[in-house]
């Protein structure tokens, strides 16, 4: 079973939600990641058949289903909100998609409901109504509803986004094992890079209604082809510092002192082209007060330290007026207002073309800006 989106576009009231999407979704799980308003929900709705695209075709197992009503398709959908029938019990909620399916006769429905409830860990709650359940249990019910009937396409639209941290972790682990052997196409939308990386499934990066990149999520994380992909896959957000190529080095304007190593990043082999670049630095690659030879030195003033227990997020104001966030392990205490130096290994700096956001190099040592 494959789902193919062939040049799919969706426009509503002058806004382009999906712009010429070409995708092939294979059997098994695919992760769809993108920021808010990237078009994830629109794409899911097109695949489900809840929305007819303005142009393009949707093919399921080679058959064009673009114009076929969702009622006649074999799909299931799990929403970010916990959508269950409010007046029905958990049992009836799970059973409702099975009632109209000829594959399940009377006792077949009962067996399947109990099986799926067992799988989702809600077997003890079958007589309750959704309003008597916690958020996590409600979402488990909604997922059970979606899993009950074997379908060609299972769509999950940020199903864990409205759950609290612990429930999310737990349910995410459950889902990963559940989808591992699942027949049919499973499309899982999320805005959370950790979720995409944890699933480790083939990933589609969506942004502004376009497919940014398709591929292995770990490889994309390590080597993001564009700034948009790097930003989508970075949590906490990627630090960005503007720089200019000059005399074979990248200078960070406002920070380059005449005899300082600070703010001067060697860019071997690069011409003095005056080309503008953006340096992308992941917060966990920043260290404080521990100089390693060859590291980029950034003098800064401490503005704010957020301690979460397992980590400390240090907000820095760099000399040039730029902000930098460092994600440091453990609980570390800092005094706001004090001066410090942030170090970054040049090997972990992404250099993006300021115009277009294309990745020029991973690690400053490889920078070649002649192009």
């Amino acid at each position, binding site marked *: 079973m494959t789902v193919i989106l062939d040049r799919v576009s969706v426009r509503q009231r002058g806004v382009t939600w999906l712009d010429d999407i070409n995708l092939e979704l294979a059997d098994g799980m695919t992760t769809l990641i993108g920021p808010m308003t990237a078009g994830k929900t629109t794409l899911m709705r097109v695949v489900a058949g809840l929305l007819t695209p303005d142009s393009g075709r949707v093919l399921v197992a080679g058959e064009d289903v673009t114009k076929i009503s969702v009622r006649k398709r074999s799909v299931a959908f799990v929403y970010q909100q916990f*959508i269950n029938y409010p007046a029905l019990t958990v049992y009836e909620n799970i059973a409702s998609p099975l009632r109209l399916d000829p594959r399940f006769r009377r006792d077949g429905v009962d067996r399947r409901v109990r099986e799926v409830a067992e799988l989702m860990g809600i077997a003890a709650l079958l007589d309750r109504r959704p309003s008597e359940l916690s958020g996590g249990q409600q979402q488990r019910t909604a997922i059970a509803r979606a899993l009950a009937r074997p379908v060609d396409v299972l769509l999950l639209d940020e199903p864990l986004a409205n759950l609290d941290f612990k429930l999310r972790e737990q349910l995410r682990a459950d889902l990963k094992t559940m989808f591992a052997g699942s027949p049919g196409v499973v499309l899982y939308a999320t805005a959370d890079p950790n979720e995409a990386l944890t699933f480790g499934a083939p990933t589609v990066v969506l942004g502004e209604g376009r497919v940014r990149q398709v591929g292995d999520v770990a490889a994309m994380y390590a080597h993001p082809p564009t700034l948009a992909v790097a930003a989508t896959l970075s949590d906490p957000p990627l630090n960005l510092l503007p720089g200019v190529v000059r005399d074979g080095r990248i200078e960070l304007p406002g920070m380059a002192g005449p005899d300082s190593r600070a703010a001067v990043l060697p860019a071997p082999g690069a011409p003095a082209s005056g080309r503008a670049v953006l340096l992308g630095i992941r917060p966990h690659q920043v260290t404080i007060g521990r100089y390693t030879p060859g590291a980029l030195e950034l003098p800064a003033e401490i503005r704010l330290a957020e301690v979460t227990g397992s980590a400390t997020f240090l907000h820095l104001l760099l000399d040039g007026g730029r902000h930098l966030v460092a994600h440091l392990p453990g609980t570390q205490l800092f005094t706001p207002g004090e001066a410090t130096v942030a170090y970054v290994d040049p090997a972990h700096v992404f250099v993006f073309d300021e115009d277009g956001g294309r990745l020029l190099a991973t690690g400053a040592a490889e920078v070649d800006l002649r192009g």
Partner: protein
Amino acid sequence: MSVAGGQVAGEVVTGEAPAEEEASRAPLKRRDNRAWWLVLPVVLSVAFTAVIPLMTVVNFSVQDVFSPVDRVFVGLEWFQSISRDPEVRAALVRTLLFSAQVLLLEIPLGVALAVVMPRRGAWVSVALVLVALPLLIPWNVVGTIWQIFARGDIGLGGWTINNVLGINFNYTLDPADAWITVLVMDVWHWTPLVALLAYAGLRSIPEPYFQAAQIDAASAWATFRHIQLPRLRGVLTIAILLRFMDSFMIYTEPFVVTGGGPGNATSFLSILLSKIAVGQFDVGPAAAFSLLYFLIVQVFCYVFFTVLTRSGR
């Protein structure tokens, strides 16, 4: 709940939490009664708007008043005579029957109207204005409109029934015709209120519910039964309470159209009450009547509210 009766639903629901909070904090604080000053304005305004007028009624209900200086305490005599009065009993049955018919017609009709009203697009505002129109007309004007509309000689509606449908219809002579006229008038006037409340309730249902129903290939009826109706519980409770109270106390429209007639056919409790209080100036019986009337409304609202909020939980 006993204080508010059925009148203010919100108070009943939220009433418990602050009390609990207060109790948990109490040991931490020393006694401080200054908060009473904050409650005082409410107590005073309620005293002047509700309690004091009500107490004058209570005062009259236990006295026989011959003149402002000549009055006799009669105990519960007026209450006894009013509750045994066959005319009052007949009016009570009539009013209850009317309210029951109003609820049975207006609630399903209002919900049906709300379901078929457009959910989005340019027609939303057109539909809203059209539906809301009857609500904007003053009650006595509604009465006047229907008094003319239902007439067999010059009224469009009455004339059509008599001359086109060939049914003999005259609300000034036939008790059934008069009853139907008042009932249809109330349905015309107040179904829009139910429709607007239900429409607001339906609009608050997130789109994914309808999508989920589509994916399950649920029929329109199943979608209504399992998604829309359960989510209308709150607004329908309010609609039923409002329509019951209002129809049970209906006065202006039947007064204008039929004046309670023909005979006593449309003589509801309120019309009878005003006849005793204003027409005959029997202040004592009228006061006792008012209190009993008030009590019946309170009891019914309490029962409705309790049943509707508890069922299905």
